């Protein structure tokens, strides 16, 4: 049997870690978009990812829509769910405290999960990989083509959001809401619309994460919660509200998991990642790129 040098192994761990991390990062970005406008941690974020995968299965595999068409349809459907979430679960709450809003998102995530179970059943589903399953071998390091799609989509989401927040009026208005909702209201921005938009946008990003993940890891109705927690961890690690922080946090979390699974006791890999997260928080109470002064002003 051929030998397998340590350096190759290490590179393989990095490739894997970055891919998984990219998924976490996309979930974390979704958390941040909603958090920035509303101060809510939307615990239904993971359900968007799950829906992204399962809706794609339905429109692509079952209905037979071609990939290029199935993609926007899926994102649209999940975005609609995000909009409904805001209209049916968040907006009706008359005296919103951050705690009740979070409970509402928990309730919504339970409902979405339950409905997904009724619609798709309990078995896992697969999607064909976007550009085949032939692994790319670069000097002994194996890269699945789908990995490149995952990382590519993360980059696309990051660039897209940067342009959106810096170049468009809508994006700037959302940014203003995030900085100071009262002032935003004074200058005539409809904060309610911005909240709705934030749910739509983060649902869309969740859907993208889900449909790129499914060809790698399959998808079933019960996946959302775990992804939400990893994404929440990534967002906190990077610093809540910071988009570079979300990407950094996601990638770091993915790398720690992969490296510790490969080099330490793999049963404890999630524990290592969380211990490092705790250590970071104890040293920097607002995450790596978070701003302590800003968090002080946030209500919760």
């Amino acid at each position: 049997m051929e030998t397998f040098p340590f350096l190759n192994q290490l590179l393989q761990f990095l490739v894997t870690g970055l891919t998984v991390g990219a998924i976490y990062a996309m979930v974390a970005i979704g958390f941040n978009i909603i958090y920035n406008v509303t101060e809510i941690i939307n615990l239904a974020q993971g359900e968007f990812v799950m829906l992204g995968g399962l809706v794609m299965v339905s429109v692509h595999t079952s209905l037979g829509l071609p990939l290029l068409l199935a993609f926007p349809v899926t994102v649209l459907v999940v975005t609609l769910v995000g909009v409904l979430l805001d209209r049916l679960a968040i907006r009706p709450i008359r005296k919103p405290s951050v705690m009740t809003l979070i409970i509402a998102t928990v309730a919504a995530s339970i409902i979405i999960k339950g409905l997904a179970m009724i619609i798709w059943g309990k078995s896992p589903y697969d999607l064909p990989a976007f550009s085949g399953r032939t692994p790319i071998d670069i000097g002994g390091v194996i890269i699945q083509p789908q990995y490149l799609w995952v990382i590519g989509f993360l980059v696309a989401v990051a660039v897209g959001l940067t342009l959106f927040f810096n170049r468009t009026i809508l994006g700037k208005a959302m940014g203003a809401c995030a900085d100071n909702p009262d002032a935003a209201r004074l200058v005539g921005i409809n904060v309610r619309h911005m909240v709705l938009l934030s749910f739509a946008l983060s649902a869309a990003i969740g859907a993208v994460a889900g449909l790129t993940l499914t060809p790698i890891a399959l998808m079933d109705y019960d996946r959302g919660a775990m992804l939400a927690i990893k994404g929440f961890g990534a967002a906190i690690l990077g610093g809540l509200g910071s988009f570079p922080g979300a990407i950094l946090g996601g990638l770091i979390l993915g790398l720690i998991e992969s490296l510790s699974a490969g080099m330490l006791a793999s049963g404890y890999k999630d524990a290592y990642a969380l211990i490092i997260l705790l250590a970071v928080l104890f040293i920097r109470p607002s995450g790596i790129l978070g701003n302590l002064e800003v968090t002080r002003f946030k209500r919760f």
Partner: protein
Amino acid sequence: MLRIRKAPMLAGALLILVFPWIASRVPAISHYPDLMVFAGVYALITIGLSLLMGYAGQISLGHAAFFGIGAYVSGVLTTQYGVNAWLAMLLGALAAAVVAVAIGAPSLKLRGHYLAMATLAFGIIINIVFREEARWTGGPDGMVGISGLTVFGYALDSAGKYYYLVWGIVAAVFLFTVNLIQSPTGRALRAIHASEAASAAMGIPIARYKVIVFTFSAVLAALAGSLYAHYMNFINPATFDLFFSIKLIIMIALGGMHSIWGAIIGAIIVAFLSLEWLHYFEEFEIVVYGAVLLLVTIFLPEGLSGAPAKLMARMRR
């Protein structure tokens, strides 16, 4: 507002006292005392948690871990070392207290969502330990053969008997907590919740109070864990996972965060919903559970314990 009146307390105590007798007369609910044992176990945890969340204003998504620490310390010490069950219970509470101080002192400096994540992470880590240290805990399969409890040679071996043990403890803890809320300590906690800056200016050592309450709630959770282990005669890590922590938060939210009554009502409602009533909806169970939670959040933001007051206010109008 905070004066907790004696009449409802007496009524509650009486109801708890006669409930098994009533249940035994009605065949369809004859197993309800069994459910009430678990509701009581949950109530022990939510009382502490409500003190922490509703009064001191600190969130914890890691209390399932303390529940588990109590259960596992009891389980391991009694089955593998032959320690007396009551002593093991005490040691479990002590272990939880030590862990709570160690994790609480640095964590409680964190705010809001960061504190939520830190406690969540802590809970998951502890659960991984339960799962991985199979030599002691039996691993994911769980641990069998935990004995029942006896009092002076009298075995508490049926739901009816255990019911009175658990609810007796709940009643004692409830009284303790009610006293606490109405005492200088309770005032200090509410002050911290209302304004940390002003509390500090009044000389209230905020960090210390947060850690004390966190520890107290952890001890109660551990106690509940021991009671659970000796009743089930079996424990497994999945019982103490993060979803149970979230379920505890749901109990508090359903019952009403700012009331100790709410903690008990929430625990009972969620216990019955999830262990019994929702079964009738079969595959729609999860959806109905979520819908109930959402409706209460929307229409009764103060929780079910706020409902009677709201109802009366509406009737007066």
